[in-house]
């Protein structure tokens, strides 16, 4: 809740972000329409599915923090404030996660719903059949945020070892943009590239929740995939936190 309120002070920034997401959604939608008109039924999508995918992927940018960052933790490691965070009575990882879930909820309301509605008004998007799909979609989005948090937490914590984290941040950005389905839907990637992309954790952030929404995937498998990666990444995060604690003690704070 605290995270939600902290981020809700930046309302103008969120509105501006929603505006930008909408503009990009429209531009990308036209490109996907051109592709699907040339190749109807490509990858099991029709044109409407492709448009929906496009606006959903724009909608996920905010909550999933596709462009990286959002935690503020890396900054705190660099300034040394993280030392204070580590002695707090609450676990650094769970405290960050709670903050991040609040942020995601706020950005979902501000930056996900408006672009999707505008996309629906301009191009028309697919609406899921029943309440069950909506529910599963909601679960899938939450699972996606957890995976996204898991990745970003590890990236942020890496600043404890490599003091300048900008290099790894930009590496993480490339991987995330490409393998989440943000650049092109993963299901049109050719051959082995598509297979690899669909198995990596980034798929859980954009491609999988969008497919759950569109009803294009086996839901049990999709949620299992997301939660599996979330569990692995959060476990790794816990290990890294313990290692970081030892590291900070050695450095003397």
């Amino acid at each position, binding site marked *: 809740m605290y995270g939600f309120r902290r981020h809700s002070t930046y309302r103008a920034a969120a509105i501006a972000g929603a505006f930008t997401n909408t503009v990009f959604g429209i531009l990308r939608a036209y490109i996907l329409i051109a592709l699907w008109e040339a190749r109807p039924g490509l990858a099991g999508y029709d044109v409407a599915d492709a448009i929906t995918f496009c606006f959903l992927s724009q909608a996920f940018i905010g909550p999933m923090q596709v462009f990286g960052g959002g935690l503020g933790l890396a900054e705190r490691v660099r300034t040394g404030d993280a030392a204070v965070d580590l002695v707090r009575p609450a676990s650094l990882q769970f405290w960050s996660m709670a903050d991040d879930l609040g942020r995601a909820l706020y950005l979902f309301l501000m930056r996900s719903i408006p672009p999707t509605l505008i996309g629906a008004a301009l191009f028309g998007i697919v609406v899921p059949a029943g309440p069950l799909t909506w529910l599963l979609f909601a679960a899938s989005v939450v699972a996606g945020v957890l995976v996204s948090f898991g990745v970003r937490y590890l990236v942020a914590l890496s600043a404890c070892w490599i003091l*300048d984290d900008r290099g790894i941040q930009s590496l993480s950005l490339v991987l995330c943009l490409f393998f989440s389905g943000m650049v092109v839907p993963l299901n049109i990637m050719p051959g082995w590239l598509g297979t690899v992309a669909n198995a990596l954790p980034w798929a859980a952030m954009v491609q999988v929740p969008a497919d759950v929404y569109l009803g294009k995937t086996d839901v049990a498998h999709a949620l299992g995939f997301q939660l599996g990666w979330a569990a692995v990444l959060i476990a790794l995060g816990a290990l890294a936190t313990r290692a970081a604690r030892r590291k900070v003690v050695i450095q003397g704070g």
Partner: protein
Amino acid sequence: MVRTYTLLAWTWLRAGAQYPLSMALLTIGTFVVSALDLIAIWIIFEHTGTLGGFTLPEVMFLYGTAMVSFSLADLLFGNVDKLSAHVRAGTFDSMLIRPVSPFVQMAVDRFAVQRLGKLVQAVVVLVIALPQLDVPSSRVWMVPVMVFCGTVIFTAVFTLGGALQFLLTDAPEVANAFTYGGSALTQYPLSVYGTDLVRGVTFVLPLAFVNWQPGLFVLGHEDPFGLPYWLRFAAPLAALLLGAISALAWRAGLRRYRSTGS
């Protein structure tokens, strides 16, 4: 002004060179991030022979020219879209009292060599695409003209975005929709977009003159929207007009600027 700019850019370059590894990694990172857009184009052409009536080398040509223009503008002046951060931090005030144009100071602030990564990537694409196209020498002269005009147009868009932030200090992201949105728009042939959008970027915000209209001339392509032929040569006019408007907007913004007082 050019001398001051060069001097300041050199200073920032030397500052960046203090961390050579980081600088190299960031440059490579920018190269790879901008290559993602190209990979997207390749993946799309895995599935189709033409997009909006254009072949892969033609799209790569349009992409290459647009991105050379954009990355030049971004390298030299793109930083003006950080204006709101300076206004909020109060550091813009200190720029105003220095005896150098605040526009030059803003443009060169933290001059970052890693933006060269994007430029190099775009040049590579253009160099690969051009020989495949067999452009007759009677039309190839347009390529440097369009790259120059495109750079001016993108610089003007960055400046307008900066000027807008005098008004919208809290919402700098709005400017991104036009600067980075403009770069995304011009990567593809405009024939994939809707008619209204294309009218808008031809007659309101003239992004169509970055690479689309002059590109039609170079490629010897029909205009799918049936606009007059002479528009293909109107890029310098569009660049001049937009440049003048953005300069006026920047001045107007500067005049109405009141410090945050902090």
